[in-house]
């Protein structure tokens, strides 16, 4: 158990702080710098767990546990779930579109950090009372006592808030089907009216060696058609291009048949002719 004394902490805690603190900062940086949202979420989860450890180190046992269970466990899972639902979009690109936004943002962030540091440095926070006395009757009991006495009103309101949030989330995401679903005929007529793409979309993998969903179908000239791949995959950039492989295969096949039929090597003769011409 940590000492929780004033002014200074144990060496163990210091050691723990410097190691885990560094990791937490790296995690936070990775959160904002990772290109894919899933990676960001994972880094954030890591940072949160480290924060949970710090809570524990600071004598907030209940919060530490809650942080792990609720925050990292539930909320971050919710995030991952939404990432899965939403899929990957062009928004994931780190390329800035607003002129000067990145520099301004960095400037603001740095300036703010400096300000906060200056503020903390200026504040008289030398004296640490420690939680020894407050946690004497147990951290959870102490919290419970406060919540149900001094903060009972706020607590009740958080209840209301949670209910409202739940209802709100349902209202926002629920979509009542108000109109009749379109029939197949109507949809085909619509397509004809739009005149963009009359037949159904082509299936992936046609004319290709593979017919997995992430492989684009090849057009007669051997180039891949993006139309054949699911939109979400397209946006995530998870298309495997097999066109070059297919062409190589084709060439290999031709080579083999040439060998077998003992025809003169077309390419060799071609190149030989050019060499002669250049001489």
């Amino acid at each position, binding site marked *: 158990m940590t000492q929780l004394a004033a002014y200074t902490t144990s060496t163990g805690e210091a050691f723990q702080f410097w190691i885990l603190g560094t990791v937490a900062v790296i995690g936070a940086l990775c959160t904002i710098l990772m290109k894919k949202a899933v990676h960001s979420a994972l880094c954030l989860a890591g940072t949160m767990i480290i924060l949970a450890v710090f809570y524990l180190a600071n004598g907030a046992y209940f919060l530490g546990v809650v942080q792990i269970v609720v925050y990292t466990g539930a909320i971050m899972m919710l995030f991952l779930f939404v990432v899965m639902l939403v899929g990957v979009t062009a928004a994931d690109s780190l390329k800035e579109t*607003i002129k000067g*936004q990145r520099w301004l943002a960095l400037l603001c962030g740095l*300036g703010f950090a400096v300000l906060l540091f200056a503020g903390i440095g200026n504040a008289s926070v030398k004296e640490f009372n420690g939680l020894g006395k407050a946690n004497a009757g147990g951290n959870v009991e102490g919290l419970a006592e406060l919540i149900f006495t001094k903060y009972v009103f706020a607590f009740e309101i958080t209840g209301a808030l949670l209910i409202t949030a739940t209802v709100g989330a349902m209202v926002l995401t629920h979509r009542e089907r108000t109109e009749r679903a379109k029939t197949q005929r109507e949809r085909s007529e619509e397509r004809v009216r739009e005149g963009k793409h009359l037949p159904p979309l082509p299936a992936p993998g046609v004319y290709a060696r593979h017919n997995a969903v992430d492989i684009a179908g090849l057009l007669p000239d051997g180039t891949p058609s993006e139309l054949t791949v699911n939109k979400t995959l397209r946006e995530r950039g998870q298309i495997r291009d097999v066109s070059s492989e297919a062409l190589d295969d084709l060439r290999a096949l031709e080579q083999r048949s040439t060998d077998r039929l003992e025809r003169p090597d077309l390419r060799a003769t071609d190149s030989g002719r050019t060499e002669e011409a250049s001489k």
Partner: protein
Amino acid sequence: MENLIALLVAAPLLGAAVLLCGGRALDRAGHWLGTLLAAASFVVAVVLFADMLGKGAEERTLSQHLFSWLPVEGFQADVAFQLDQLSMTFVLLISGVGTLIHVYSIGYMEHDERRRRFFGYLNLFLAAMLLLVLADNYLLLYVGWEGVGLASYLLIGFWQHKPSAATAAKKAFLVNRVGDMGLSIAIMLMFTTFGTFAFGPVLEATGETSEGKLTAIGLMLLLAACGKSAQVPLQSWLGDAMEGPTPVSALIHAATMVTAGVYLIVRSGAIFNGAPEAQLVVTIVGAVTLLFGAIVGCAKDDIKKALAGSTMSQIGYMILAAGLGPIGYVFAIMHLVTHGFFKAGLFLGAGSVMHGMNDEVDMRKYGGLRKYMPVTFVTFGLGYLAIIGFPGLSGFFSKDKIIEAAFAKGGTEGWILGSVALLGAAITAYYMTRVMLLTFFGEKRWQPDAEGHAPHPHESPKTMTIPMIVLAFGSVFAGGFFGIGDRFLHWLEPVTGHKHGHSPLSAATVTGATVGVLLIGVALAYLQYGRGPVPVTAPRGSLLTRAARRDLLQDDFNHVVLVRGGEHLTRSLVYVDHTLVDGVVNGTAATMGGLSGRLRKLQNGYARSYAVSMFGGAAVLIAATLLMRAV
């Protein structure tokens, strides 16, 4: 008795109001009403005159206080009248000649559909002119002063459909306004110097201020007089003013209004007496104008313009006399009165001639009219003899006195002024003889006009000839009546004061010289115009003649310098106002617009961009809080 004074002004004013506001219903009787009210004014004047004659010389000044016009702290302007011998002289002249010209106009304007309005304007003029001479302070005088200017404007431009008439009217008013500026500055100077501008206190207090102040006031009054009396350099309007109907030219631009400048100077005699330099300038202006007008008069073929030049010249005599100080005041006024008779007579004669000649004004197209218009010929002839100063007639007495007084000024100035006056007399004789010969003698030179209407010269109706006869009487006898026994001198002396000058030449010498130059002038004109046929189209003439035909190029000068210059100035100012003054503001607006256009780009609609601003703002706020706490 003094309560009658207001009636003098009120009668014609009432006439003006009724005639101008009344509708068409008055068209048939309007002219009689106007004439009647003018005559009423004259009758009142005569009554007052008779009353005045019955009093001693010192008690003859009457005054009437009507109401306090403009009472402001430290500034009192009253509507009050003062009738003394000087005003009386003018009142009689104005209402008398005015009435005659009303009568004359009945005939002259018979065929004009706007005759009622014409009489309204004439009445308005009489009221304003009487107000001018009756006012007991300069501000009220100023009201009359501008009032006659307005009437003159309306009457010169009476035939408004003629652009030349409208332009002439505007020009007259504008040039007069320049003079009015002088009068108003003079009044302001009086106010700051004396604290008042009533005649009595101002003229009494002249001794208590510096000569510089008096000179300034005097020069400003002279500027006013120059405007109203068509003296150089503000003389250019008078020739153009002949665009008005001839009775107007006779009344306003010969007999009465144009002499207001002389009245002003004589009335302000005390001021000028204290400012010899101002007096000198007055005499110079008078002398220059008297030559200027005479030269212009020699070259004009338009009978009315020739007479206008003559008027200018004669008023030059009066101004010259007035500038001589106490030795000249009385003679200035005397010449003014006699001039009022003979010049009005001459103009009416000219009007009668034009009436008979289909409104032709070019003397080169007259000739031999004495047979067709005997009455006009005789009255015009008497006026002619009077103006050239033929011994025994009016002009002789008054002009002779002025020449004498000019010599009496003394020193080199006296010699120069006297010689100029003599020279002027010679030129007067020359151009008036020319007018006479061209109009009434020689071959008849008129031809049918473009539409084939040949003029049928005929004598004018009675309403026109009677006033001419009356005026001819005045032209013949007034001078003698005034001059013999110094009757006029004694009448006016209590008001204007008088001093006998010591002429280096004896009175007989001056008279002899006057008669001599007169004969030379007549002879010259006879040699040039009397002996042979006169060409109908004017010969090209010498350089001087051509310049004189163009009013000695003064109009051209005005046109180039003032009109063109003014046009350029206003046009460039309009441009400046649009581009510079407005441009600065519009430019600011455009800059702001551009700036906000740039700033708008910050509002790019991206939530992240706004988040940066919010975050940056929060950072700045925290930094400010920290800094405040640190400080």
